[in-house]
């Protein structure tokens, strides 16, 4: 990393004595000024609610923590995921803005759909802070009040499930009784094969669905799984991420006989299989870049169950002016880095506005099977 020029440090000191240490993590003056302003606002807020006397000490303490590389979100305790404020704690990955862009876009598309099931069920695997179900709920229910939403967040980490429960409670309390959606959370291991020998501490997804009497079928599957390969972890992640964010949320566990790239992609095959088992009509998987996106899209294609597969960049709602707009037969839409893979089948294409209405008549039949009595229970936090 290039050294920060002395002139910049001097310039920063002239503006504020606390700015130079912030230049280390921020790298440029504008960003450092913003962060200092947010830290100050936070200190003011903390001081006003707790009656903290030593504001300067507190601020200096925060600046020192930030200078050591600790993510700002862990210091302030929250991050905005779209318009939703999500609480963050060390040990759980901080939500990223790029994920928010994809989730917002897919929720908007689904929100515009003509006909939706009587209850829209969304499964979010590797939920972390629970940010994806919360944002999906926020965007979807702002356009559709007629369709109740049911989300299930799944994570292997106990800390994550605890924090997600806290976030769901916090956000839903703000909405009071106006919300018709349910967000549930369970702890389960997505990677473990339900038919293989079961681990003792964390159940497989299928076992967890059975155990808590949750529905076996879900309309949508969204996931932002760990997708960084071990070598990319050391080469491309920033030190702040490496030192302060949980590795378990970034790098998939090593499997037998896998090379580096395969380990990075370890989750996707399993996720697509889960999508098949829960009969998901729309699947959105986050990826690291276009190369991984193409690999995942190929995996999905090999399953021969999807009607369409598309690759989204960071901002899928912006017009694409970036090359390439197509690779290996998969359309790449939007602007920025390759960010997610969208797959759909049957009615999913209709919900997303990808297939004309008459094509999905056959699908309506299978819909009637699905709406037969289902096992329901409340297991919410």
């Amino acid at each position, binding site marked *: 990393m290039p050294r920060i020029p002395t002139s910049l440090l001097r310039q920063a000191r002239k503006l504020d004595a606390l700015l130079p240490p912030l230049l280390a993590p*921020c790298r440029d003056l*504008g*960003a450092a000024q*913003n*962060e200092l302003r*947010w830290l100050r606002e936070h200190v003011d807020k903390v001081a006003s609610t707790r009656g903290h006397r030593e504001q300067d000490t507190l601020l200096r303490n925060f600046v020192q923590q930030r200078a050591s590389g600790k*993510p*700002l*979100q862990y210091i*302030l305790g929250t*991050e*905005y995921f*779209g*318009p939703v*404020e999500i609480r963050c704690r060390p040990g759980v*990955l*901080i939500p*990223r*803005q*790029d*994920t*928010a862009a994809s989730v917002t876009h897919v929720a908007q598309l689904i929100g515009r759909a003509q006909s939706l099931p009587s209850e829209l069920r969304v499964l979010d695997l590797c939920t972390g802070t629970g940010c994806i179900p919360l944002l999906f709920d926020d965007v979807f229910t702002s356009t559709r009040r007629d369709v109740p939403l049911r989300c299930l967040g799944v994570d292997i980490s106990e800390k994550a499930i605890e924090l997600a429960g806290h976030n769901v409670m916090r956000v839903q309390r703000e909405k009071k009784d106006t919300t018709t959606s349910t967000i549930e959370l369970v702890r389960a291991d997505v990677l473990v094969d339900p038919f293989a020998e079961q681990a003792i501490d964390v159940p497989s997804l299928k076992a967890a669905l059975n155990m808590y009497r949750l529905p076996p079928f879900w309309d949508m599957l969204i996931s*932002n799984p*760990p*997708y*960084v390969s071990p070598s*990319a972890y050391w080469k*491309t*992640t*920033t030190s*702040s*991420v490496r030192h302060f*964010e949980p590795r378990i*949320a*970034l790098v998939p566990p090593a499997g037998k006989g896998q090379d580096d790239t395969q380990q990075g992609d370890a989750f996707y095959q399993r996720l697509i299989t889960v999508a098949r088992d829960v009969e998901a009509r729309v699947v959105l998987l*986050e*990826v*690291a*870049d276009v190369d991984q996106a193409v690999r995942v899209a190929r995996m999905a294609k090999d399953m021969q169950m999807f009607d369409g597969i598309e690759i989204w960049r*960071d*901002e899928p709602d*912006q017009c694409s002016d970036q090359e390439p707009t197509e690779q290996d037969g998969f359309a790449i839409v939007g602007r*920025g*880095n390759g*960010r997610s893979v969208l797959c759909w089948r049957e009615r999913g294409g209709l919900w997303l506005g990808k297939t004309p209405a008459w094509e999905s008549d056959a699908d309506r039949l299978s819909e009637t099977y699905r709406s037969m009595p289902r096992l329901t229970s409340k297991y919410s936090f």
Partner: protein
Amino acid sequence: MSGLHHARAQLLRLAGLRPYAPVVPRPHARPLTCTPVRLANLNLPPRRTILDSEIEENFLKGSGPGGQKINKTSSAVQLKHLPTGIVVKCQETRSRSQNRKIARRLLGERLEVLELGDESRVMIKGREERRRKASADKKKRRKYRGLEGGKGDEGEGEKQEVDSEGKEA
């Protein structure tokens, strides 16, 4: 402020009243209570709506990998109005959606000034603000003149003047 308080306390003591009796509304509380009422009477033109096709939106994130690999705190939003070429940038809050709203409002204001000139919301509000400030200054000057002049006199008349001004304000 404390000087004024002190002077008022003295005056009230002279008048034989308890010094901290709430007789005079504090002058600085006035703008907070009155502003919305005054602005409501201003007859402002409707806000200018900006179509999505008119603008180019940009999230200034820099290059390099995104997603899980790095943790950016930048939530800056830049809007470019294509027909006029006006560029507005906002990095006020940590929420990108909030910044998008603020940037759109700023751009709307800029466009309105360009299109309506003196009749735009910003200009009308600015004029009103200046007018109010000028009249408040005038009152302030009158008040202090009164206080200065009345230092040697008996307190009764002075107290009334302060009182009436406070109510008038």
